[in-house]
């Protein structure tokens, strides 16, 4: 499932995938894979992304149970 909230939050901060990747110390492809829903990050990486984008885990990663 695509993570459009992450993409929107990144765009709101005017960051490219590469810039966010550098802030989180991962590769650009990893950020791309998370946004596309191809990779489920660990909680540590989720937190790094949240810190970089000034968002909470809920705001970026929480999904309601189906």
């Amino acid at each position, binding site marked *: 499932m695509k993570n459009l909230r992450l993409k929107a939050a990144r765009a709101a901060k005017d960051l*490219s*995938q*590469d810039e966010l990747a550098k802030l989180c*110390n*991962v*590769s650009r*492809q*990893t950020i*791309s*894979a998370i946004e596309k829903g191809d*990779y489920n*990050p*660990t909680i*540590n*990486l989720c937190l790094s992304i949240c810190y970089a984008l000034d968002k909470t885990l809920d705001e970026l990663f929480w999904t309601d149970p189906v």
Partner: protein
Amino acid sequence: MNGMFGTIIVLAALIGLIIGIVIVKSISTDGRFAQYDEMQQRARGVAYKYGFYTMTGCLALVIVLDLFDIRLPMEQNLIYMLIFLCGLTVQACTSIWKDAYVGLNTKMSRFLPAMVIIALFNLFVGISAIARGGMISEGLLQTPFINLSLAVIFVILAIVGGLKMLVNKREEED
């Protein structure tokens, strides 16, 4: 004679290993071995799995051929080296395709020339062996064939890398 040849091969492998370590360290931005993020580490795990399956499959094939008394037209040690290289090639191609071949701290401006130099060096050694007539002896491919194989592998890796770059470029929305 065989012991002497074995010593030369082991020495060559050791020198190659040392040169390899120097190259690997020199192409990184911080002098360390390549560092990978969590997605890359996971992808590399999958790549190693495929590499292992490939090696196992090739080895099984050689054993089956041997059972039927079918001999490959190459030296015994070359067969094992090629099996090893097949596994490594699959591992490398899978890593490239999953964006997990180049580390976070790899300096691309040094990485690509290093790959080209290594490929050309192996091609040169392979062609020299052909020119000397040392590639085939008594109808069997000899150890220098490994250098030609390495050159071919680098070409394969370059093609896979190029294709992956094209795919990434298409997907890139930034």
